[in-house]
Structures are given as C-alpha cells and as structure tokens.
C-alpha cells in the first residue's frame, strides 16, 4: 500500500459492519510493549531510538500480518499528512509532537497500526467496526505473539509487561469502544452513565481520545486498570458494559421516538436541511449535525443513507482531510467554506 492509496480508501472500522454498528462505531484494542534491551523512548538517546525502529522493521517483515503494510517515519511526513493519520485514529496526538525517531506501521485495511517510539517502544493497535472486542483482542494477541518471536519484550514474572508509565503495566492492554449515544445525551442520562462507568474501573472520553470533547455525541469508553486482571477478563468486562450501554441507548431512542416523535423528526429534518444548505460550517457543528442525521438513519426517519458513507464523513470533514482534498493549506475560515460545500454535495444527490 502507498500513502496515496491509504488516503483514497475508507478504513475497515468505518464500514459500519459487525454487531451493533449503529451504536458502537468501532472496537479497539491497544497493547503497550517495550524492547528489553533499550531504555523507554523518553529516556533513550537518539541512536537507541533508531535501534528500536530498525529492530522493529526486522521483526514485522517476518510476520504474516503485514503483507502490503505501509511503514512511515513520522518525520518524513508533512504536517497535513501527520494530522490526517490522527484524524484516521492511526496515531496519537502525542506521536507527532516530537516527530524525530518515530514511526508507524499501518496494515492494508487500517485494521492494525503500530506506533514505534510513542510513550512505549511499541503501541500495537487493532481497530474493527462494531462491538467486536473479543475478535479484536484475539487479533492483537496473535500479532503480539508473532512479533515476540523476533523481539524480546520487557517483562517481569509478577508485573507482566513493563511499560513506561506505571498506569499501563501488566497486560499493557487498553480496550475501548467508540459509542454513539445521541439519545442518552438528549434525555440527559449520559452524565449519569459516565459516572457509573467510572465506578467500574472504566473511563469515557471524546472522539479523539484523551483530553478531547465528546463532539457529535461520540464517547470512547475504555478500561483503566491493566494489572491484576487477565486480558480476557478486561475485554469481557468492557463488552458486558457496552451491551448494557447499548440497551440503555436503545431504550432512550425508543422512548424519545414514542413520546416526542414530532420534536425528534423536526430536529432530524432541520439538521439535514442545514447540512444541505450551509455555506460555512465548523467541524464541531458538522459533527453535531451529522450525529443527528446518523440517529435519523438508524431510526428510519431518513431513508436511503449508507452508514459507511456517514461514518466516513466524520473523518472526511476533519481539517487535514479537507486540506488534502483541496491540495493546499487552508485557514479555519476557508476550511469552513470547503467543508460546507463538501457536505452539501454529499447530501444533495
């Protein structure tokens, strides 16, 4: 796969497939791993960071999972491309802050991405569509095993996988789901549910992870504890919690639909009209309107909308993706114009 091919495709996780894809947009498993022979990235000199990159390159080329994968050095990308990788959830914001000696490996359908020299030497991510945590974990486990045949990871017999930050030690596993919860937000129950989640050792964040807002009624729900529970237990816990959240969101949707149908339909058709006719639109506003459209499509109020197209729009309207399409840098105001045009074309067919 080339970089151009990556930009032209829609990631597997946006396809709207898998169980409960209306509410759970994607499932993600991340494993933190470090190579035993080097200090952790923030504490390692440049030549050792390069050592991590070349050791990793040697190992992934022997693994079955990365045929046709794209290996990129972050410092070789321009700023729009770096931002696009973040918008596609393939790398973190932290990964581009200091791009030297950092890299990422991206599998053909964007299911697997491995950040090299982020906070840990390796951050293995598997991202799938729908509520699919068990399969996602199984794949991450297999990749881990394959890499492990050619890399010696830092482990201890009682603390498990050793990570740069003690909050990740043990399994090094963070499982998360991106959930679209518009009806729970509308009925003002989202706050209560987030509180309940945190009591169960889980946490809820916005669309782009740590420190981001829950734009478009998207919440990223993940485990916090990594030590003292097995990977299966962690994944299973999250899966069970997600099933309850799905139930609650469905109940809220039914109740809104039954009791305030006219109000809901009004909001959905107004949102569609706005998206069709806006001349200027910010990312935040667009995400919030698209969220209502997505709900409308789920409830059958809007017919004939493809979920994959809608999911993909959430990414395509992000700033770097718009700038790539235009082939130049754009100011925030210019982007709002281009975004409005782009969205309006999608809905005026």
């Amino acid at each position: 796969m080339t970089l151009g091919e990556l930009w032209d495709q829609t990631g597997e996780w946006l396809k709207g497939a898998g169980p409960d894809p209306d509410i759970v947009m994607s499932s993600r498993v991340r494993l933190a791993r470090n190579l035993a022979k080097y200090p952790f990235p923030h504490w390692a000199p440049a030549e050792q960071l390069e050592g991590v990159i070349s050791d990793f390159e040697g190992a992934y080329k022997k693994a079955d999972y990365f045929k046709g994968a794209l290996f990129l050095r972050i410092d070789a990308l321009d700023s729009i491309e770096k931002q696009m990788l973040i918008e596609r959830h393939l790398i973190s914001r932290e990964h581009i802050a200091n791009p030297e000696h950092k890299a990422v490996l991206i599998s053909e359908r964007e299911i697997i991405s491995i950040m090299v020299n982020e906070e840990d030497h390796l951050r293995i991510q598997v991202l799938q569509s729908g509520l699919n945590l068990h399969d996602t974990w199984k794949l991450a486990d297999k990749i881990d095993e394959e890499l492990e045949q050619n890399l010696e990871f830092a482990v201890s017999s009682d603390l498990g996988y050793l990570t740069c930050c003690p909050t990740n030690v043990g399994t090094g596993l963070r499982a998360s789901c991106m959930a679209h919860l518009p009806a729970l937000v509308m009925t003002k129950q989202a706050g209560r549910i987030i509180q309940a989640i945190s009591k169960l050792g889980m946490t809820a964040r916005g669309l782009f992870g740590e420190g981001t807002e829950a734009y478009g009624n998207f919440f990223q729900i993940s485990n916090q504890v990594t030590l003292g529970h097995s990977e299966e237990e962690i994944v299973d816990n999250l899966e069970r919690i997600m099933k309850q959240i799905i139930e609650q969101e469905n109940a809220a949707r039914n109740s809104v639909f039954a009791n305030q149908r006219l109000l809901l339909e009004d909001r959905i058709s107004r949102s569609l009209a706005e998206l069709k006719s806006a001349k200027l639109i910010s990312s935040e506003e667009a995400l919030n309107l698209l969220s209502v459209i997505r709900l409308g499509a789920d409830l059958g109020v809007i017919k004939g909308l493809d979920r994959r197209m809608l999911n993909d729009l959430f990414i395509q309207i992000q700033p770097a993706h718009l700038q790539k399409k235009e082939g130049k840098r754009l100011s925030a105001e210019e982007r709002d114009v281009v975004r409005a045009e782009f969205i309006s074309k999608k809905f005026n067919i």
Partner: protein
Amino acid sequence: MICQVCGKSEATVEFTEIIDDEVKQLHLCDGCAKEKGIEMEQNFSISDLLAGISGLEEKPSGEELSVKCPKCGMTFENFRKIGRLGCGECYSAFRKNLLPLLKRIHGSTRHIGKSPKEIDETDGKKKISEAQELRQKLQRAIDMEEFEEAARLRDMIRSLEKKAKDKP
C-alpha cells in the same frame, strides 16, 4: 536560530503547539518559553497525579529518592518528577516504592494474563521452551477448530525443530 517570538535571543526550545487541529512549531528562547508556560506543561497531568498518590502520605527518604536504576541511570527522584520510568529494570530498582503505587493505581500488584513464553518464577529469565508452548497452542487451536491457525502453528513447530537440529 533566533527566537521566533522576541526575535532577539538564541532559540533553545522547540515548541509544538496544537490548537484544535493546527500544529504549529515554534523555536523559542528560554525567556519566551517560560512565558508560554512550557516548563510547567511537561507531563503535567500524569507526573503530578502520580507524585500526588505516591508521595503524599509517606515521603520517601533521601536515601530512597537517590536509588538509581543500574541499567538506565534513572533515580527514583527522577521518576517522581516526570512520572515515567526509564526502562524495564527500573521496576526492580524502585520495587519497594513502586508496589504501593501500583496497588493504588490498579488495586493489585500481580499480573494475571499472558506472558511471552514461559518465565521462570525465581529469576524472571525466560525458559527456552518455545516449541513446548507452541505445541500447547496447537492443541488449543485444534480444540477450537481453528484449523488455519493450527496449520500455521504446526509449520512453526517444524521450522523450530529443524533449526534446533541444524545447530551444532
């Protein structure tokens, strides 16, 4: 390079600013960097939180703070400042002070779950029993009727056995 803010002093700090979606890189001198609050920002949340939960009740003694990891040279005091460890060995070097912290973060100090190959309980070194483990996995794959996986494992075991034979 001259500082991009004051345009006078030599730039010593490279500062990446991410506002919304715009990534801006600035080269700043010490003074301007301080004004932008860059020093304060370094790993603010994690280190402060960790220092907060690890140190408030019992302050580690000077002796404990100066414990140094023999592999990477990080001291426990370094760790308390930046909230990140220097290498895997740090977990052994700072074990005494880390365990209570792990207990507070995770509610546990013992890993349950997968380990790479088998780890010897006594010295933490790997027992070389890769083939043995692969055979267990093969059995599991057969039990689960994951035949593609089973075939892959079978091939891996074969190549491992071949390698072992080829070795003098």
